[in-house]
């Protein structure tokens, strides 16, 4: 039994763990809403919640630039795209039809098996957990920018080219061919 105050406070979860549990529960709950909603709109909104939760997790892991990029690109861009696509392809999800297809039962079995195998394996691995203090977050963002144009320049340029080609192709695919 813990005898003195130090031993008791060592058993309590730290504040960081408490915050992590809150953010992780929110993210996991939203992800569950994504897959279990009958309404596609609710799935898209729950995806927005999951993305916000993931951004909170990046901020907890002290990758603040990534957290802000996640909110800007994923929530501001991709979720808006998905909402527009849902609204442009309406007209068939009214009614009480199930959102799942024929293989939903098999998929559930496979997914639960995969999750239990993953968790069973992850718990046993002795991960090397070093937790150095990050003093200056500004220096990380500066060196991220430097890495983009020094060591990872080719990947950066290719990513820009990919984005350009993908968006031009998306516009070509989705344009209205009736306008002549």
């Amino acid at each position: 039994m813990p005898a003195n105050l130090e031993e008791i406070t060592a058993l309590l979860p730290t504040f960081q763990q408490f915050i992590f549990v809150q953010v992780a529960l929110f993210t996991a709950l939203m992800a569950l809403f994504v897959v279990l909603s009958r309404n596609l709109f609710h799935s898209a909104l729950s995806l927005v919640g999951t993305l916000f939760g993931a951004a909170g997790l990046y901020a907890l892991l002290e990758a603040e630039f990534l957290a802000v990029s996640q909110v800007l690109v994923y929530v501001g861009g991709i979720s808006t795209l998905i909402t527009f696509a849902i609204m442009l392809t309406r007209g068939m999800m009214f009614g009480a039809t199930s959102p799942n297809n024929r293989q939903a039962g098999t998929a559930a079995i496979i997914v639960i098996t995969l999750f239990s195998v993953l968790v069973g394996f992850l718990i046993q691995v002795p991960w090397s957990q070093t937790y150095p203090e990050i003093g200056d977050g500004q220096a990380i963002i500066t060196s991220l920018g430097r890495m983009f144009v020094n060591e990872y320049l080719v990947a950066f340029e290719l990513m820009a080219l990919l984005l350009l080609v993908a968006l031009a192709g998306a516009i070509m695919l989705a344009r209205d061919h009736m306008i002549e």
Partner: protein
Amino acid sequence: MVPITWYLILAAFLFSCGLYAALARRNAIAVLIGVELMLNAVNINLIAFWRYGDHIENLAGQLFAIFVIAIAAAEAAVGLALIISVYRNRKTVNLDELDILQG
């Protein structure tokens, strides 16, 4: 300090949810939402391993995650444009009814 296992288990859960959405939903857009969930799970894994790894001064982990976000954006744009185009031609995005190529 949060043990890294907690982050990895959360990422595994998100990946399983995304995989279920990609396999078991009928609407094509719901499948794309599942793919985005899986990519987010991978990103959480990458950043957790960067933070708890041995060489935190090597920012390649964070860079990799930024590339994943950019590629997810490109893939979502093209995928949704395809779905819109299919909807214009076939008036449905129900994956059970899109079976012309099926023999």
